[in-house]
Every structure is written in C-alpha cells, then in structure tokens.
C-alpha cells in the first residue's frame, strides 16, 4: 500500500483505520493545501480557514481511526462536506476548538506566503498586462476585457450586454488573450501563459 501522494483515497482511509500514522499525515498532505484554499475563498479569513481546516482533519482522522466510510473513493466529497458543515456551524458560534492532530503537517501545507520571487513575478505580470492593453487597438476587445476581468461579468452577461453570441465571445476573448499572451511570452511565467492557452 503506497504511503506517498499516489495513495488512493481508499488506501488512505484504510491505512488510518489500521493505525498507521503515516496515512494521517498523508491525508493532510494530499488534501490540506486545497482544502485550506477553498476555505480561504469562502471565509476571506485566513485564521478562520486554518481553524476549520484543522478541525475538519481532526474529525476525519478520529472517525477513520475507529471506523470507515461507506464510499472511501468519494473521500474528497466527504472532506468538502465536513468542512462546509463546520463552516456553517462556525458562523453560528465563535468558540474555537483545540485539536491534537499533526499541526506541523498542516502548518507546512498552509505556508503560502508570497516569496520575493512571487512578488517580482506579479510585478512583471502587471507590467506585461499593461503593455498588452496598450497594444490593443480594438475598442471592443478592450470592452470585453473590461467587462470580463474588471466588472467580473460572465460570458452570458457580456454577450447580453454587447449583443454577441457565444461563438463571437469565444473568438473575441480568444483573440484578446492571444495578444496578451504574445506580450507575456517575453516573460518566463509558464503557469500564466498556460492559463491563457
């Protein structure tokens, strides 16, 4: 049975149930970072997100130590549901709970502070976006980007407001992104270029 990130959800649940502490750490390593991200998006409060994330894993680990779940292959859904239930409950009360899970592992996955490298990459991105916008000569491209990225309208809203059908939207946004990507290619941020692809 694998004890690294290739372990399946069923193996993790079974492993914890068999008393192997490695699988408890693996559970947090595999899902902790994503769950924390999800909770931060929902709460806009890093401390609260961290508390709920920690509490979620405490509950799950305690449950798996003494039993299992019906469909361990759906562990991700179980984790999400547990966390959201806790969040709902937390919003009803402010008392925080103390836990005894592997806090070190959780701290490791939650350490997502921006590094100086990240800061430089973001500055370069802002500059590249500025150059890309200045290179746009088509007013409609600008309007679509404005509506999409700044006013945060979705495709349906943009199409409705600009009397575009979805095919047109795809074409225009694709062309605008292509132009932006051409500017960004001068930089080396592969992840952002992939997002634009």
């Amino acid at each position, binding site marked *: 049975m694998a004890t690294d990130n290739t372990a399946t959800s069923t193996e993790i649940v079974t492993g914890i149930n068999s008393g192997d502490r490695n699988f408890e750490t693996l559970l947090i390593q595999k899902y902790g*970072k994503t769950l924390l*991200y*999800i909770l931060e998006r929902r709460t806009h409060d890093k401390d609260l997100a961290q508390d709920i994330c920690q509490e979620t894993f405490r509950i799950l680990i305690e449950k798996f130590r003494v039993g299992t779940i019906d469909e361990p292959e759906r562990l991700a*859904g179980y984790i999400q549901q547990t966390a959201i239930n806790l969040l709902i409950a937390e919003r009803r009360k402010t008392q925080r709970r103390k836990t005894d899970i592997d806090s070190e592992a959780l701290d490791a996955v939650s350490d997502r502070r921006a590094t100086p490298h990240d800061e430089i990459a*973001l500055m370069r991105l*802002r500059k590249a976006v500025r150059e890309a*916008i200045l290179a746009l*000569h088509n*007013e409609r491209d600008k309007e679509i980007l404005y509506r999409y990225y700044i006013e945060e309208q979705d495709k349906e809203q943009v199409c409705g407001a600009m009397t575009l059908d979805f095919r047109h939207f795809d074409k225009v946004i694709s062309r605008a992104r292509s132009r932006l990507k051409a500017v960004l290619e001068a930089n080396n941020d592969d*992840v952002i270029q992939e997002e634009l692809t």
Partner: protein
Amino acid sequence: MNPYISSFWRKSASSFSRLDSLGPGLRRGGEGISGAFDFAPSWFVVWFIVMNNTMNEQYLNEHEVIHRYLVDKLPDDERDAFEVYLLEHPELLDEIEAARHIQNAFKANAGLLKKSRFPAWLTARSGQGLLAAAACLVVAVVIVFRLPQQNADLPLQPPVILETLRGQGDDIIQVSGTPLVQFLIDVGPPALSEELSYSLDIVQEADGSTLATAQGLHVDQDGWLLFSLSDQRTPLQGLYRVRVVQEGRNVMVGEYRVDFTAE
C-alpha cells in the same frame, strides 16, 4: 454517457423544461455533457455532474468554471461540485492562482481599459482609431450577387455558420426560402487568420458551373469571413460547394456543401 442516465434524462427532460422557463439562472449549460442538457436546470446538471463524476476539463472550459469561481458567481451546488473536483485535482490550484493573478493585473490596469466616453476615432490622437474604424468597414467583406442596391430591403435571416475547426464533415447545410443569405465562415484562430487573405468560389455540384468567385477577402474583427448571397432575380436552388482557399499559399481552408431549397 451512462446509457441508463441518458435514457432517464430523455424521459425527464420534458418535466424539467418548465423549470427552465423560469429564467436563465436555471439554464446554466450542460452542453459539454450532452446536447440534451440544453434544457436542464442548473441543479439537475450539478446533480448529474456529482453523481456521475463528469465534471472534467471540458466542462470547466466550456462553462468558465474557474472564472466564475474566482468572481463568486457559481451557484452553491456547482461550487460544491467544483470544490470536490478541486480536492481531487490539486494541480488545478496553480491554474486558479494564475487566473486570479491575471485578473488582479487587469484590475491594476483598469483605467487603461475603461470605456472612453467618445468613439475611438474621435479621441485617438494618432488617428489609429479612425484607421481601425475604416478597416472594420473594409474587412467585413460582403459579396452580394445580383441587385446589390436592393439588398437593404430584403429580410435578414440569422447567418448560416460554416465552421472549419469543429468540423462539419460531409454534412449538407440546408438553406431554404430566404432571398438573402448571410454566411459566416470560421477560417481558423483569429490571431493567425487576421493577417491573411482568402478567396472563395461557389460551384454547382450538378454541372460544375461556377456561380460566383471572390478574391482578396479578409476576416472581420471577430475573425469571421462574411459573405452574402442574394437570389432576388433567379432563385438559388440545388446543391452547391462553397470552397474557401487561403491566398498566397493556395491552402484549402474549408469546403462546404450547401443545399438551397425553395420554401
């Protein structure tokens, strides 16, 4: 698709279609899964996605899930389904963060994108706006055969779209009963196509006679090649082949079979 679910959906579609009429919010797509989902209310689509584990890359792209997640516009059920998918695919976190950074970078430059109060050609100092406006008029090539001066009076039908990227194979496109037909041809990715020129000819399949030809066509600002056919004098009837060729390299971009029938 699971045939049982497919069958179940077909049986259930009519009962859901009434919910669909309540508004666009209940009509959040499902085309990525099946065309039958056009009528599906969002909760059904999300239920289907969760129960059948069909949220996938195609669904994410077609429904802009990441963008809508970032701007908090996913309905609760769809957000739940996406979060479960995210837990199973943590590699998506980097993509989401990249999208968020791009969005923030745009916001940091919002002033550059804000719509000007006047048309571009009035405000552009260098005259580029004026040139762009003129170019739009030029590149939206309309080829009107016969009596072009009368076309303004003709009833406009929705344009017939001829696609090359998504493939129409040997399908015959039926066009009937309209004196003025507009065609939109997808000639490829806009970034590549907008610098190129194209020629087009329309040939009757039965006898190989050429109905019309045109050279030096350019895509419009949306990347479409646009042309119109009018049959006011002689009704268009029969099977035709529309061929589009990239000029210079003489590369065939697309060939479409169009069947004109009287109404």
